[in-house]
């Protein structure tokens, strides 16, 4: 509880600071640009009677971070430090939050960029190293590689032993579609709303993949305007909420289930043959990609990675995919997504709305899984009943939400282990959110 209050308290303080200094609208941006244009000649042309050494010092001062810092930069640095704090102190997704937090620090070091001057430093400045690395995010290269690693490290035997729990993974995807509607109601364009909606899938790579296709700042809307670039806010929101799964989910789980329901014991999973494990990625790939071909980059790689693991004859490839390769991509993805939150581009009203919608969609997705599991129990009896907590793992934050289910299950009954059962909706949630991303892409792309 103390942990919850600490996290919520820090986030509220940062949000209030953010709201106080947020860019109100596009008009304000225009005024800022005008002001910059007026200011730039002063920098470029020092006074004629000024001594050259003073001119050099002045120029150096103009280039330092202290001269160029804004309250937005400082606010974002505080958020980066919060991420690092959460990762180290509370162990919330440290593999993600440390690279993202550091990326936020790197992306928000203020530097001279008046009048569009290109020092080739920032992530949005062409020719900079960060810009080259950001290419993988912009073009959706990193997410399929993450999925390859995910496939190579996931054991689907829990899913194969009790396949009916897969449906819970579908139920939890309600978060995606309701958030899509919510974003439309708040005035986002349909492609932007689709990209925002996918936060409800609780799957970082999928969120990046879809936002890089739908809300990339390049595509044109039917009215001729350009779609907003929301990759940064969506990715940060998705990964932040994934890291905060242990904070967000338990209150919803306790609210929607009774102590008696939380103590329900489920039948132990059966053992699964090697042939079944080999057939799963092949059948899964063919079935899902025939129905939703747009999700092929994600699901194709997921099932390919799993086949590398389960075939038993490509151990070296599977080992590389699940260790070195996924680690490298995670570092690059985390760092560049973090760095993409450059204050002058990231701190907007839209970003704040995305964060609010993301939190709501996580709660809806969790509730969707829980309520559906309770609904299934109406038709099941005896040993076949499902512990509704397992439904909460339908959000595809693998394996965090399954771990949260296990912890909550143990709190209700210290001898009731739900981890293996929760892994089924968890991994099927990954498949479900990738399919949902494919559907949104085919409708809105």
């Amino acid at each position, binding site marked *: 509880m103390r942990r919850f209050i600490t996290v919520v308290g820090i986030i509220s303080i940062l949000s209030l600071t953010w709201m106080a200094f947020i860019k109100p609208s596009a008009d304000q941006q225009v005024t800022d640009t005008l002001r910059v244009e007026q200011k730039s000649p002063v920098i470029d042309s020092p006074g004629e009677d000024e001594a050259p050494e003073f001119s050099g010092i002045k120029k150096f001062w103009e280039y330092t971070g202290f001269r160029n810092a804004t309250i937005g930069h400082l606010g974002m640095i505080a958020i980066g430090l919060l991420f690092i704090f959460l990762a180290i102190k509370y162990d919330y997704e440290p593999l993600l939050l440390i690279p993202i937090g550091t990326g936020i620090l790197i992306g928000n070091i203020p530097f001279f960029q008046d009048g569009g001057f290109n020092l080739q430093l920032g992530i949005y400045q062409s020719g900079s190293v960060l810009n080259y690395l950001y290419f993988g995010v912009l073009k959706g290269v990193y997410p399929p590689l993450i999925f390859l690693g995910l496939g190579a490290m996931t054991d689907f035997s829990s*899913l*194969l*032993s009790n*396949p*009916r729990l*897969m*449906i819970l*993974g*579908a139920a939890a*995807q*309600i978060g*995606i*579609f*309701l958030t*899509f*509607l919510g974003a*439309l*109601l708040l005035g986002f364009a*349909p492609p932007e*709303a*689709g990209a925002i909606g996918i936060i409800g899938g609780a799957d970082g790579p999928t969120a990046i993949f879809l936002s890089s296709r739908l809300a990339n700042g390049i595509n044109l809307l039917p009215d001729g305007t350009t779609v907003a670039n929301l990759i940064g806010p969506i990715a940060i929101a998705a990964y932040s909420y994934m890291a905060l799964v242990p904070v967000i989910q338990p209150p919803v789980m306790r609210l929607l289930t009774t102590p008696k329901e939380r103590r329900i014991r489920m*039948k*132990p*999973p*059966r*053992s699964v*043959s090697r*042939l*079944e494990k080999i*057939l*799963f990625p092949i*059948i*899964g790939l063919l*079935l*899902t990609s025939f*129905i*939703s071909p747009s999700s092929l980059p994600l699901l194709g790689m997921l099932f390919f990675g799993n086949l590398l693991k389960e075939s038993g004859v490509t151990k070296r490839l599977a080992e590389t995919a699940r260790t070195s390769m996924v680690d490298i991509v995670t570092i690059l993805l985390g760092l560049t997504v973090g760095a993409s939150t450059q204050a002058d581009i990231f701190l907007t009203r839209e970003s704040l709305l995305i964060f609010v919608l993301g939190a709501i969609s996580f709660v809806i997705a969790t509730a969707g899984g829980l309520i559906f599991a309770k609904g299934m129990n109406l038709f099941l009896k005896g040993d076949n009943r499902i512990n509704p907590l397992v439904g909460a793992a339908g959000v595809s934050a693998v394996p965090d939400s399954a771990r949260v289910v296990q912890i909550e299950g143990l709190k209700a009954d210290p001898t009731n282990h739900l981890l*293996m059962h929760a892994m089924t909706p968890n991994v*099927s949630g990954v*498949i*479900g959110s990738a*399919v*949902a991303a494919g*559907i*949104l892409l085919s*409708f*809105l792309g």
Partner: protein
Amino acid sequence: MLSFLPFIMLAGIDRQAGVIVVIGYLIVFLVLVLLYLVFRYVLPLFFKIKLYRRAAKEGRALDDSELNVMTGEVNAAIATAIYLYFSELHDEESNIITIRKVSRSYSPWNSKIYNMRNLQR
């Protein structure tokens, strides 16, 4: 599911968005339900047929134990029992004690007389 459409439209959202939500959610369900059906009914049936054909080839009837599926817990219990059995085998010793003679051949490198300085008397 389609009955939600009027509510979505009442909320002031475009009809197409409503269609995306309804169709999209149904497709997600369809994919996972199809996977469920394949792995719950089709594959087990395929395995059962395979077992029957093998038994028929060997000219015997299928045993019930062959059709029953063991849970992971049963497997774990069997594995633990086997592990304990083999680890306990260590207690049965042969009771023959052999002392192996360790001999080192002489070498001037380990000789003590060369380690000390020969002081003149």
